[in-house]
């Protein structure tokens, strides 16, 4: 009898190249994703040492963080951003790495294009100089963000030094109710455990509600694992995973496909395997979630009231809450519903995939954005953009008065000129509401695409469940 293992342990064991006593393991990396912001200093490091990229064929690059989302035929006005994007092209050409830059049909946010190209596969180790690499865990891959020094190490050796992580089962039982989506699940988890709750651990999401999610929705959940402090979060692969992958450009084909599926089926956590920690969430009781503060753990069900610092017993938390409410200019005990909104952002690696745009469009169809509200819809990739245009979603957005953009990170990180003005409020489908994240002085409410779209129409924070016809919105919680 072998000891029962979790999926994390199985992938780990499969990738340990060697380990000296007392040292971390040398862990092999199957896929390395590269983007323009966290790679330049790594390539400079390689040049300084006079070494090349060990496995260019297991590396792929794209430009996403600082690319403009306006007309691609125009020159980039921000000279620093333009230089950074040019530098990525130069570096990739010099080191022989395929790059999907501006104008390439596969360009897009790094965490959207990996799965889309079929590069993200079960059982793999995947890294990127970006903390939301956890997204790829939706396929049953061990995927995590790394710093630039580590980017250089992976480029040079296709390995990393890692200590084995602890495991944390996040079990989501039951069924999501209409108007409640994957984004609400992950915001509810983070509100419960706090933004440091998963530090040192890898989340494994299990349970009926997780099984019922589509791949796009699973990616939304895994994406924000890092917001709960976990460097990675994953879901064991199943038929939903295989159906998504089948026929994608880099997915195995023919006999290799059949063999891969057999192998992938063995990845699931064994009966009786032990986790270091565990939490259970009941999907039936979840409501649409929204954040009110300045980190993703400061979230509440949308019908709740903003908490009061006086109720906090811990002095540190009281100070943090006071500071957050001051920054957000919200009053303790006030309702969040009805709070004025200036900008709504639908996009990012959390909620910029085609099914997210479909959800937003289903709310916006035959409706119009409220006066004075700016709605920005930014597809996660060029392919998502083309698909949304084919399906007529783009027309719905434009008719509703939205700004329909080119693919990129855009207002999620506000590096490309898409940003809030000081004091403005945004409902955003992205993943971080840190001070200034969406523009200096800007104030962010994180929420689902449904809540974002409903708020754009109302001009204030609105509950998507109050919209007529919400019950029939296809597969919000289910497959």
């Amino acid at each position, binding site marked *: 009898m072998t000891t029962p293992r979790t999926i994390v342990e199985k992938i780990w064991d499969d990738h340990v*190249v*060697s380990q000296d006593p*007392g*040292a*971390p393991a*040398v862990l*092999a990396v*199957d896929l390395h994703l590269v983007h323009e912001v*966290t790679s*330049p*200093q790594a390539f*400079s490091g390689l040049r300084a040492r006079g*070494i090349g990229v060990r496995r*260019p*064929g*297991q590396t*792929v690059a794209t430009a996403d*963080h*600082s690319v403009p989302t306006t007309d691609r035929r125009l020159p980039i006005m*921000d000279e620093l*951003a333009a*230089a*950074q994007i040019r*530098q990525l092209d130069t570096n990739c050409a010099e080191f022989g*790495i*395929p790059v999907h830059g501006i104008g390439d*049909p*596969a360009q897009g946010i790094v965490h959207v294009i990996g799965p889309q*190209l079929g*590069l993200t596969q079960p*059982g793999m180790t995947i890294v990127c100089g970006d*903390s939301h690499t956890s997204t790829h865990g939706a396929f049953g891959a061990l995927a995590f*963000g790394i*710093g*630039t*020094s580590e980017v*250089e*190490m992976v480029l040079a*050796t*296709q*390995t990393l*030094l890692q200590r084995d992580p602890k495991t944390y089962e996040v079990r989501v039982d039951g069924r999501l109710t209409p108007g409640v989506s994957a984004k609400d699940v992950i915001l509810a988890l983070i509100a419960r455990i706090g*933004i*440091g709750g998963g530090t040192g651990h890898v989340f494994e999401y299990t349970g009926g509600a997780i099984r019922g999610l589509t791949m796009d929705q699973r990616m939304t959940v895994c994406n924000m694992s*890092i917001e709960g*402090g976990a*460097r990675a979060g994953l879901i064991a692969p199943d038929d939903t995973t295989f159906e998504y992958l089948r026929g994608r*450009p*880099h997915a195995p084909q023919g006999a290799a496909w059949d063999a891969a599926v057999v192998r992938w089926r063995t990845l699931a956590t064994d009966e009786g395997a032990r986790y270091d920690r565990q939490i259970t969430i009941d999907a039936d009781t979840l409501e649409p979630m929204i954040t009110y503060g300045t*980190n993703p*753990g400061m979230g509440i069900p949308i019908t709740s009231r903003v908490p009061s610092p006086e109720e906090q017993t811990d002095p*540190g*938390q009281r*100070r*943090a809450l006071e500071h957050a409410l001051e920054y957000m200019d919200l009053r303790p005990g006030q309702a969040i519903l009805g709070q004025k909104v200036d900008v709504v952002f639908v996009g990012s690696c959390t909620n910029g995939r085609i099914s997210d745009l479909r959800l937003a469009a289903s709310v916006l169809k035959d409706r119009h954005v409220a006066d004075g509200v700016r709605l920005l819809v930014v597809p996660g990739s060029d392919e998502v953009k083309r698909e949304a245009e084919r399906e007529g979603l783009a027309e719905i957005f434009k008719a509703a008065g939205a700004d329909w953009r080119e693919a990129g990170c855009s207002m999620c990180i506000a*590096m490309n000129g898409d940003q809030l003005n000081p004091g403005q409020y945004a409902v955003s489908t992205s993943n971080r509401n*840190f001070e*200034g*994240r969406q523009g*200096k002085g800007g104030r962010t409410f994180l929420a689902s695409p449904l809540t974002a779209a409903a708020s754009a129409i109302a001009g204030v924070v609105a509950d998507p469940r109050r919209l007529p016809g919400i019950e029939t919105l296809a597969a919000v919680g289910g497959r």
Partner: protein
Amino acid sequence: MADPFTVFTSRVVPLPAENVDTDQIVPARYLKATDKAGLADALFRDWRYNEDGSLKEPRFVLDQPGMAGRKILLVGDNFGAGSSREHAPWALTAWGVRAILSTSYADIFRSNSLKNGVLPIVVDVETHARLFELLAGDPDAELTVDLAEQGVLLPDGSTIDFDIDPFAKQMILADTDELGYLLSKDAEISAWEATHSPRVDTLAGAR
């Protein structure tokens, strides 16, 4: 990498905020640089400076009299949350920080710091509170950080012991880097690659 790590004594910059994220440590608009220069000015930029580049009043702790040159930062729980940007420890090093004291750090920040010779020291909740009290009583109190002995010496002669990954410690003390170590594993990596075919080939048939 900063200078090789030896025992050093310094006054302390107190920053009691919890969950300080890397977007505060270095705002995203400073990530467009393609080198590591000039990041000292980006450190805690929006907490320190007004729009026009003048210092905010009241001044942020780093810009208060007597703070320049301090090498130790005492911060609240879960420091360095969020983005993986290594610009955060680069900016801290550029300003002069060599060690941080907190009850916990976000994983990627901790790992990035160790690779840049910034020591993320974890202390327990009581010690953490005691350090803030010490600084409240004497803002110019000096601490001595001894990595080899894994101890922080307090002015009263007592020592706080701390844990650190033994491998990371060895790397910092020897002023070598992990890449050098990994490059020395070339034979093992080649052997592994010989028995594990690549899962994907980004160069083949890519659209």
